[in-house]
Each structure stands twice: as structure tokens, then as C-alpha cells.
């Protein structure tokens, strides 16, 4: 267990960076993606997260888990990304399923991609504070305490943001569903 040590300082010095990287790569990538980093840029942004982590490893004090610590860095990188002009160009990029997989696999991948695109659209409609709480609690299964510590807010605030985020999520999904139903009905008539 490399995530938490009893020593109040210099815990990061005991961590194997490659292990840290491999254990948390997917988590960092997912967090970046769900926090608005475009698919094409997620790799560069992920590298930035780990570059920062590598530089700051000696300063990691073990008061949070490694996952929480990395998450903090990822949220900041994602925030910078959203502020930059890149995000405005991201929509122009068309994704192509890759590989030599069978048609059925590709269809399934396409469906997953579509759902992920919808998920990202729904999340992008939320205020960023609610979005962060929602992503970390519902998708990454972090605890309320961890999220509160990470965002430097009281647990009650995390709870209320989560409640609002769920409501917004449901509303957005319902709207999309009813819109789809209307389109389907119009297409048939």
C-alpha cells in the first residue's frame, strides 16, 4: 500500500513513480476527460499531470491518499484546459474507431462513444463545482470526506452539490430522452 503512510512528511519520497503512474493512469485520464478535456488532448494533459506529480513527489506529505493528491492536480490541469482556447476547437475533431476489430465490436464501440459524448454533454451543462463532486463521487467512487478535503469545502457543501448535480443530471437526461422520442415520432409520421 503506497497510498498512505504514517509519517507526516516526505511520504512521496518512498513511492515508486512507475507504480504510481500505472496504478493511477486510467483514473487520471478519466477524471480529465469527464472534467472537460477533449479526447485528443487527454494524453498530453495526462502527461502534464504526471510531470507535475513527479516534480512535487517529494512534497507529498501523505495526509491524503495518492489518488486524491493526483486528482487535485488533474482538476487544476483540466481547469486550465477549459480556460484555454483549445476546448473551443475540440468539437471540430471527428473520432475514428481504430484497429482491426470486427464490425460488431466497432458498432459497440461507436455506441459507447455516443453515450460517452452524451455523458460529457450532460456534465458540461453543470456548474463546474457540481460537476467535480458528481464525477468524483459517482464515477470515481471517492468518499465525501476525500472530496471535501480535496476541494477544501465542508462535507455539507459536497452533499448539497451532489444533490444539485444529480437533479441537473436527471433533468438533462430526461430532456434528451424526450427530444429523441419526439424526433423518432416525427420520423415515423
Amino acid at each position: 500500500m503506497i497510498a498512505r503512510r504514517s509519517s507526516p512528511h516526505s511520504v512521496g519520497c518512498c513511492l515508486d513513480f512507475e507504480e504510481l503512474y500505472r496504478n493511477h493512469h486510467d483514473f487520471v485520464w478519466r477524471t480529465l476527460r469527464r472534467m472537460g478535456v477533449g479526447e485528443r488532448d487527454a494524453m498530453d494533459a495526462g502527461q502534464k499531470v504526471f510531470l507535475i506529480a513527479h516534480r512535487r513527489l517529494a512534497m507529498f506529505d501523505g495526509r491524503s491518499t495518492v489518488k486524491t493528491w493526483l486528482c487535485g492536480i488533474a482538476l487544476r490541469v483540466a481547469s486550465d484546459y477549459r480556460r484555454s482556447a483549445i476546448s473551443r476547437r475540440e468539437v471540430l475533431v471527428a473520432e475514428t474507431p481504430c484497429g482491426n476489430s470486427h464490425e460488431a465490436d466497432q458498432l459497440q464501440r461507436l455506441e459507447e462513444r455516443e453515450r460517452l459524448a452524451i455523458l460529457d454533454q450532460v456534465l458540461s451543462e453543470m456548474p463546474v463545482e457540481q460537476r467535480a463532486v458528481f464525477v468524483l463521487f459517482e464515477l470515481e467512487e471517492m468518499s465525501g470526506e476525500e472530496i471535501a478535503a480535496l476541494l477544501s469545502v465542508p462535507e455539507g457543501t459536497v452533499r448539497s452539490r451532489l444533490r444539485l448535480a444529480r437533479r441537473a443530471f436527471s433533468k438533462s437526461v430526461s430532456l434528451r430522452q424526450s427530444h429523441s422520442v419526439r424526433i423518432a415520432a416525427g420520423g415515423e409520421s
Partner: protein
Amino acid sequence: MTNTKRWLDELPLGSGERELLLVGKAARPAEGAIDANWQALCATLGTTAISGTFATSAAASSSAAPAAASASAAASAKVGASIAVGKAASAGLFVVAAKSLALGVGIGLAVMGAATVVQHSNRSSVVPATATKPIPAQPARRPLLSAPPIPAAAPPIATEAAPVVSPSGVSAVLRAREPGVVSNPMPIQPAAAQPAVAPFAASTEERTASLARQARELAELKRLIDHGSPAEALGRLDKNFSAGTPSVLSEERDALYVQALARAQRRDEARTFARQFLLRYPHSPYFETMRQLLTEE
């Protein structure tokens, strides 16, 4: 908060929310991305710097060091101590470990001291924080893959916390520091030095004609590669790169370059450029081709 349940546990089966949450939880980066990213990190930081477990005492002193000590100096301290601990652990010799550790800490502190002096003497210069060694100036010979940038492929990410990465992103750093490149080091091209691309300046007809011409050229290159003339294809591509001709088909052109290298039996270069290709175009249709090139013996 501890008693708040996950929404997934409460949502009815088949609900739209549930489906989206499930797909969100299961999302993973593209196959091979983790290794490609790791290689890029190693290239950026220097393999030694991240290949071992960091030593406690050295980094404790690093973390306690004043702010004047740069992060790069701290990293150097950790590298020295890391090598020491790695050696000691494998040999099981604690005495050697202690001596090596002391040596590592010594080297680290010396580097930190030097870095502090350098910082004081030259505060105005920007020092890349994670660079463990300076990037050597490379003669500009082949601007492969760095030629006309795709807008969203390697974008600048403005991060106050990370002044490490050059304006053209991690991929550009990688391009300059790829350890495998021996015969064809690729230079970082400053953004200003690249040809100005004005995609909307030309008329639609001109752009269509240009696109058709580029497609024809690529088809011709593909034919050359497939019919046993990869050297000629490479020559043409080199000419294309040195002309700095912007191309909307740069992804295809770069992929052809890697394939031509492979066909020309220049395997090492092909692998190096394939790695860079994967970083630059992580979701390319050529992803699998490049990955196979990297994995085959």
C-alpha cells in the same frame, strides 16, 4: 456524507442515468496509451529519474529545503538517492546502502547548491523545472511530425503549476528528447518559425484543388512504399518536410513516413517515430499499425 449512497445503487435498471454512469465508469484510454504515455514521460524526464524508488532521507531534506532550491535540484537529489537505494536493496547490503545513500544525498545537496547559485545569478531566465539535463541544441535536419501542426493534436495547455512543457506541448518535448533518436534528431520548431497557415484565406476551389493534389501525392507515395521503393518515398517526404508545406493530411503523411522507414529496414528510426506518432495522434486509425510496429521484433 458517509451515509450517502452511490446513485448507481439506487437508480432503476435500464434508466438513462444509469446507462450513462456505467459507461462513464468503464471508460478507459485507448489500448497501448498507458505504455506510450509512460515512454513519453521517460523521454521527457530522463529514464533514470523515474525508474527507481526514491530515498526517504534525501527527499526529506529536499522537502525541507528552502524555496530557493529548485525542483530540478530536488529531483537530482532523489535520483542519486534512488540509485543508491535500488542498488542496496538488490544486494541486501545495508552498509553499502548507507554509504551509497550518503553519496546520493551529497550529490543531491551539491546539485541543489549549484542550482541555487545559478538561480540567484540569473533570476530572469526561465529554467524548466523537471528537466534533469539541458536539452542540447540540435541541428535542424528533419522536421517530421512537427511539420504543419494539426490544431487540436498537440495544443498548448497553459498551466501555472507546470512551466515544464514547451508551448507546443509534451509531444514537442518528446520530439526533442527522444532517447532512441541517434541518426535523425528532430528539432523543436518554435511556433513562430513554422510557416503561417491561413486555411481560410484561399478560395474553396483552391483548397479543394490543394487537397486533391495532396491526396494524389500521398497515393503515389503509398504506391512507392508498397512497390519496393521506400527510399524514394522517403526522399520525397523529406523534401516535403523541408519545404514546410502545410498539409491537412499530415497525419496520413506522417504515417506513411513511419511505414517507409520500416520498409527501408530503418527499424530503430521507424519505432522512434512510431512512438511519436502515437503521442501526436493517439486516436488515429493508424494506431494499431504503429503499435504493432513497436511490439514486433
